[in-house]
């Protein structure tokens, strides 16, 4: 050691400096873990978890037992159960006399922004149980807008739970986005070359997928799931350079929204009319005119696959489509277009043995008016847009209970 110091004092200095840096990592790691484990998580900085990992069948799937503090939009403790679901622990074998409902959906249903007890599924289950229904509402949802993820999720995680009914939930826009045809992140329908659509797994060529099974990949996943500092460095490394450097021009795009002056009532009404019409047009093209053809082929194939899969497992399906715009009352043309759209959508679902639910209308009915729906989304000063807030979950729970009550003929006192 002495000779090392004498021969290269600069190197020795550098080594000691590096030791200090390692101690800093240990200290910050300890600090972040302390925050996560105490009530300080509600306010102080935490690093959002990545509660999943690359999956060769699914693209990206949640990891059983993963946990952390979700920070985007609103803070909540996130816990993935041993079955890989954002839900309380459930027995795989269905308890006798229990009616099991699987809630499929995207991030809106997964609801990482609120605690598990505050999700609409948990609220609805508690209220139904209090009313005497022996029911379990199991949250099968996973973030990601592609509807095909819901089918894969159902097959991988749902059927083994012996479900009686499935309540899927997608945005109307998710069928238009082209995600059903894009296999770069998740499985999707791709053209086989002969005009036939087959399930494609293009995402398997991604670097993360190719190395996820090897030792370095598994070590990497274990590190980002268990070490806040490592996860922080990983997440920051994926940011564009101007944002990583913290330059003002890059930050300004992430500034909080400032409310602008509200337009006059007459203009607002006309604007809402025009916006509803503009949003409905591509939907009616898809569901009534089956255009664009490739997109419709993928949508029809998805509906066929979903119906076939659930039929073969003896599970009934309610498919809730949300975000179908509700035009104001004095908008006759968009209202007519909407009615036509629903008629065509209902025809497609019913012909495959599934029941369509106009979720936007259901929620609007619960809160009294379409104008009240935005306040169900977002938190604090961002209220009006984003994922469901606590009021939103209460409203969704009410709408869900309304649907399920019609399907739950027996109470707990009765047997099933």
């Amino acid at each position, binding site marked *: 050691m002495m000779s090392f110091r004498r021969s290269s004092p600069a190197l020795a200095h*550098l080594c000691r400096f590096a030791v200090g840096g390692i101690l800093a990592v240990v200290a910050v790691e300890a600090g972040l873990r302390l925050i996560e484990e105490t009530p300080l998580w509600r306010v*102080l*900085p935490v690093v959002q978890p990545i509660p999943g990992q690359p999956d060769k069948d699914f693209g990206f799937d949640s990891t059983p037992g993963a946990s952390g503090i979700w920070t985007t939009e609103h803070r909540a403790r996130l816990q993935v159960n041993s079955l890989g679901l954002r839900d309380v622990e459930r027995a795989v074998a269905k308890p006798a006399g229990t009616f099991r409902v699987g809630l499929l959906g995207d991030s809106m249903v997964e609801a990482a922004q609120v605690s598990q007890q505050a999700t609409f599924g948990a609220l609805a289950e508690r209220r139904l149980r209090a009313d005497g229904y022996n029911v379990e509402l199991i949250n099968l949802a996973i973030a990601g807008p592609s509807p095909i993820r819901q089918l894969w999720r159902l097959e991988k995680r749902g059927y083994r739970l012996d479900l009686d009914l499935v309540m899927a939930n997608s945005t109307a826009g998710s069928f238009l986005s082209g995600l059903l045809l894009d296999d770069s992140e998740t499985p999707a329908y791709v053209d086989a070359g002969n005009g036939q659509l087959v399930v494609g797994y293009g995402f398997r060529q991604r670097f993360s997928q190719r190395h996820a099974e090897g030792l370095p990949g598994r070590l990497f996943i274990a590190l980002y799931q268990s070490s806040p500092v490592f996860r922080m460095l990983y997440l920051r490394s994926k940011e564009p350079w101007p944002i990583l450097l913290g330059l*003002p*021009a890059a930050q300004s795009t992430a500034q909080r929204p400032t409310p602008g002056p509200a337009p006059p009532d007459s203009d607002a009404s006309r604007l809402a009319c025009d916006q509803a019409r503009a949003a409905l047009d591509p939907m009616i093209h898809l569901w009534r005119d089956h255009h664009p053809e490739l997109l419709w082929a993928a949508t029809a194939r998805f509906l066929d696959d979903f119906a076939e899969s659930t039929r073969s497992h003896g599970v009934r399906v309610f498919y809730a489509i949300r975000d179908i715009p509700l035009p104001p009352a004095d908008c006759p043309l968009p209202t007519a277009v909407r009615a036509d759209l629903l008629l065509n959508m209902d025809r497609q679902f019913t012909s495959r043995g599934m029941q369509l639910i106009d979720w936007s209308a259901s929620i609007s009915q619960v809160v009294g008016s379409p104008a009240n729906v935005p306040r169900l989304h977002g*938190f604090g000063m961002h209220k009006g847009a984003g994922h469901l807030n606590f009021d939103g979950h209460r409203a969704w729970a009410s709408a869900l209970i309304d649907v399920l009550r019609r399907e739950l003929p027996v109470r707990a006192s009765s047997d099933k």
Partner: protein
Amino acid sequence: MAFNSLAYAVLLTFSVAWMRVGPWPALMLILASIVFYAAAGPFDMLVFIGAVALNWLVQIAVPADRRRIWAAVIVNIGLIGYFKYRNMLLGQTGLAGSFVDTALPLGISFYSFQALAYHIDIVRGRNGPARSFPEFFLFKAFFPQLIAGPIVRPNQTLPQIQRVFNDKWRRHRLLVFGLGLIVLGLTKKVVLADSLAPVVDDIFYDRPESAYLAWLGAVLFTFQIYFDFSGYSDIAIGSAYLLGIRLPRNFASPFLAGSIQQLWQRWHITLTQFLRDYLFIPLADLRVASRRYRVVQHFCAIVVTMTLCGLWHGAGWNFVLWGALQGIAMVFAALWSRYLPVPPAVVGWAATIIFFVATLVFFRSPNLAYAFDYLGTMLSFRGGLPAAVDDAAPPWEVAAGVAGLFALHWVEFRLQEPRVLSILRRIEGPVSRGFLAGVALLLILIPATNVNPFIYFRF
């Protein structure tokens, strides 16, 4: 460029390294300051360069007597007046009734006051002038204190800057002191102020319906602004120290003060001293009242000074009233101490804190109407404690959190004891430097859920 950005860490590291081993340290500091301020954008840069040039012109073209003071006042108060108070004077309001112009050049309130102090001190013979334009430029543009202070006097930094130009500046050996200040400042800003910001924003945005929430918002904002600005000052002082320049301290545990006068002697110290020396003392010394009424004149000078202090913080009547209330409270406290028995220390402390917290509502509110509405909720004592719904933290956790903030403030006070310096001397070395540099870097990298610029950047 924000202090809590990776870009600033790179700039500071490069500057410190260059100052230690490279040639032309003064030129490097000038270039680093230009790079630092250029991040604000070309408009701000243009205004700043214009302000420096105009002030240099005042120095070389106007004789060093009262005329120079008047010229400096016209240039610098004119600049602030045009950019900051134009809307208020014209009665033009923006969003939420605010007079604040979104195009306010970054740091204009600080660098204008600093230039004003420079000219006044030279005329009064307290300090010699800068010997060249580069010296003057670096005095104005020295990047650790350019945007939000501390507001330095020429006798505090100009001689040090002249030593940099002479290549004889003091190379500080106690690097852990500078790094420690930076880590302390980043902790205050990133861990505390930025964490409190969204909570405060949500409470003020939603117009709280219960007194509990309204008080919570006001208390948390008090700590937010303290951690934000004192954190900024700590980073500024630490950065300057690493570059061989000592800056004056700006905060001294203000929330431990036993009276409002004490609080203002510990809060934004360099601004308070500026106002005392260049505004209050001249006003109090004006021979406008007979000897019998000098006390009244003295008290009026306090209220006027603090009212202008409020106006300096923001172009809005809410800021004016906030400042005036501080002045009135100082007069009240002075009269109390003269004619009434001194209350127990804890009573004085509690009264001071409650007054400061309550009046900061004017500071945080977009306009007067909102502030009175908010204060009405605070004083209504309606609403009771919140029910334990919607994942809300129970009141005992909130109370513990607020107590924790005061405890942290006390810990920070203890950190200022001389024995801490001797501990730093003992641990100085590559390990401690690596540790502090590593913590600083990781604090910068902690992901922010929202962009929260330093609050005093807006002034």
